[in-house]
């Protein structure tokens, strides 16, 4: 690696401006308002993000994007995580943009313009792309897709869907999968929103004989992984960054509480047992921050070698977020348990983020495989 793991001047500026914007436009109270209104995200907020060029962070300049790279995308995701801002950023600007870019799709410009995408991949309760079995059977010159996708992030509202389907081989085989880029309103597609604990947009999606043509195939048929693998890496790195931001947000609230709150006649942050736990958590966050920064760097510099770096980041980010929100609730005591307080939102999003795009065990196994055991 040549680039420093410390943010450059440009990166610090990007972070500062994102932080200032989000503090104003999307504090945690916005998530609460969305939740209470039964609205999974605020399209107005997304429009503003699009105007700032965030939707095109990974889109080449010739397609109207800013082409700032994965580290920059990670900084944006991290800042969104810090205040729990809900948006289609990861699904569209990170995952779909990377897939479309790998496939050389002309629709990239639409992403930079704010079109929203969702990746319809999971079929069981655990992330396992190669186990996908949703059938795309040959029909005339095209395909007919039938089956169910579950836990599709942003799937209830997305304009378009990337649907992973099996065109050959059997579930468990990495080959024989094809990625379709479909308008979400196409005949035969029905979407069922889910009431996930993080109050965001997740849906189950049923495909009932949905017709698709070769035009709808992203990349090559039977070889989805060529475009999907980079997209997944990008999404996993971005989600890791979001979880790191979430962790930092939860920890910040907790540390501030420890400094202010008094009990038994003293500030609770003066209790050594809490000090040591807080300091330990801070160390964990520092280590995870390194893994997240590194994943972004490697994706920018040698993306084909990024599997290990990305999986280290996602595994660490998942565990650290869990620790931070658990300690956050416990150290806040009763108030941390009340809905009126924000910590619960952090805990709920951390849980959803732990599962999306592969849980700790999935990524730890990938690390082991990369390390030869």
């Amino acid at each position, binding site marked *: 690696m040549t680039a420093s793991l410390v943010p450059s001047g440009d990166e610090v500026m990007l972070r500062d401006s994102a932080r200032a914007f989000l503090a104003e436009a999307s504090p945690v109270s916005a998530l609460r308002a969305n939740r209470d209104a039964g609205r999974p995200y605020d399209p107005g907020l997304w429009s503003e993000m699009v105007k700032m060029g965030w939707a095109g962070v990974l889109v080449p300049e010739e397609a109207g994007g800013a082409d700032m790279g994965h580290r920059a995308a990670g900084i944006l995701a991290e800042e969104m995580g810090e205040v729990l801002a809900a948006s289609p950023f990861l699904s569209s600007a990170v995952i779909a943009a990377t897939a479309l870019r790998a496939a050389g799709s002309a629709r990239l410009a639409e992403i930079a313009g704010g079109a929203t995408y969702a990746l319809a991949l999971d079929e069981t*309760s655990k992330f396992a792309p190669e186990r996908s079995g949703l059938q795309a059977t040959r029909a005339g010159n095209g395909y007919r897709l039938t089956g169910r996708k579950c836990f599709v992030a942003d799937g209830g509202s997305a304009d378009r869907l990337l649907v992973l389907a099996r065109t050959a081989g059997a579930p468990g085989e990495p080959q024989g999968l094809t990625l379709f880029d479909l308008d979400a309103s196409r005949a035969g597609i029905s979407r069922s929103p889910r009431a996930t604990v993080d109050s965001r947009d997740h849906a189950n999606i049923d495909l009932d004989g949905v017709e698709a043509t070769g035009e709808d195939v992203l990349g090559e048929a039977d070889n989805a992984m060529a475009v999907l693998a980079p997209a997944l890496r990008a999404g996993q790195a971005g989600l890791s960054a979001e979880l790191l931001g979430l962790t930092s947000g939860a920890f910040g609230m907790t540390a501030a509480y420890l400094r202010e709150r008094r009990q038994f006649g003293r500030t609770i942050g003066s209790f050594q047992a809490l000090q040591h736990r807080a300091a330990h958590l801070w160390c964990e966050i520092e280590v995870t921050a390194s893994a997240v920064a590194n994943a972004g760097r490697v994706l920018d510099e040698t993306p084909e070698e990024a599997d290990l770096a990305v999986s280290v980041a996602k595994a660490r980010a998942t565990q650290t977020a869990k620790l931070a929100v658990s300690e956050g609730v416990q150290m806040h005591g009763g108030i941390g348990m009340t809905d009126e307080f924000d910590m619960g939102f952090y805990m709920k999003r951390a849980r959803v983020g732990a*599962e999306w795009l592969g849980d700790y065990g999935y990524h730890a196994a990938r690390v082991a495989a990369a390390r030869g055991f």
Partner: protein
Amino acid sequence: MLQHSDDPDTFRANISSWIEAHCAPELRAIPRTDQQICWGGKRFEFSSAAQKAWMQAAAETGLSAPRWPIEYGGAGLSRQQEKVYREELARLNAPTPLESFGLWMLGPALLEFGTHEQKLHYLPQITRGEIRWCQGYSEPGAGSDLASVQTRAEDRGDHWVVNGSKIWTSYADQADWIFALVRTDREAPKHRGISFMLIDMTAEGVSTKPIRLISGASPFCETFFDNVVVPKEDPAGLSRIVGELNRGWDVAKHLLTHEREMIGGGAQGLLGTRSLGAFLQDLDDQVLADPVLRTRAMELEVDSLATAMTLDRYKDMAKQGGVGHASAMLKYAGTELNKRRYELLMSVTGSDGLDWDGAHGALPSEWLRTKANSIEGGTSEVMLDILSKRVLDLPSQ
């Protein structure tokens, strides 16, 4: 009426037929829902005539408070007889006829600290399910530091005027009376100057507001006292203070230990509600092919079994003279284990377990609710403080 008998077998036969005679078969179905619990009190709506009849039969026999003295509305059973009674209830799937904070907390406090007249007045109201009590200890901003009571009762000659608020008062919105810690002497050191006071919830100036938790709706409330007048003696001449004036902390401490044993013991109940084994067997095989999840499940199972054995061992110890402050261990170990269990259940259910009312029902709410286990009834940190000072004899400074 129940035929008492000193012969255990005869007693068992008697109690068994008494249960069968008074607890209608429709009540004896499991699983039971929270709605079927009989709480009593003036505002309680029985879920069925059978439920009401069962409570009344128990109240008449004193079996709503099996070990309380007969003169105070109890059945006067021995520890051994009570055990037989509970075993027969369980065997016949019969619900406990009456549950209440009066039975669990105020009653034991009155039996220990109350006057004969207070006992005669208040205890039978509890055993008969006439008055539903709630507990007013914690205050907003006080957290674990229960002794830092700010709610104050000012002495106005023949009455007190109470101002302040309480938090975490379970079912305060459905209770008739509250037993509360109030500061009656603001000059005294922190642990002095507190009194254990009985207050009518219908008195002017008392109001409640429900608390929503991160896990959803909850029985908890905030309770506010705004210039509430509490007579020093009510018409019957009974004091509204339990125990000595300004020594309410002694009463509270006694009850806290009592509560801790209940919650620690409750760990066994919690463990039972979601059996890990049954859960795991229902899962997609692939889930437990993951060595991380398999390892977590194995670790949890080892620790759950050993903790269950510990509950058994401590019950045996309690029979032989008590466990003292070591009960803090049960609270700590039981609640921390339960949090781990629910973290694992969330992990093994994966995305199926993320919906509020999805494939695994209330699992996400239950998971979030477990996070309070190690806060309520004394935080894990307070338990570890107690253990290090009282059991391990480690110095304060």
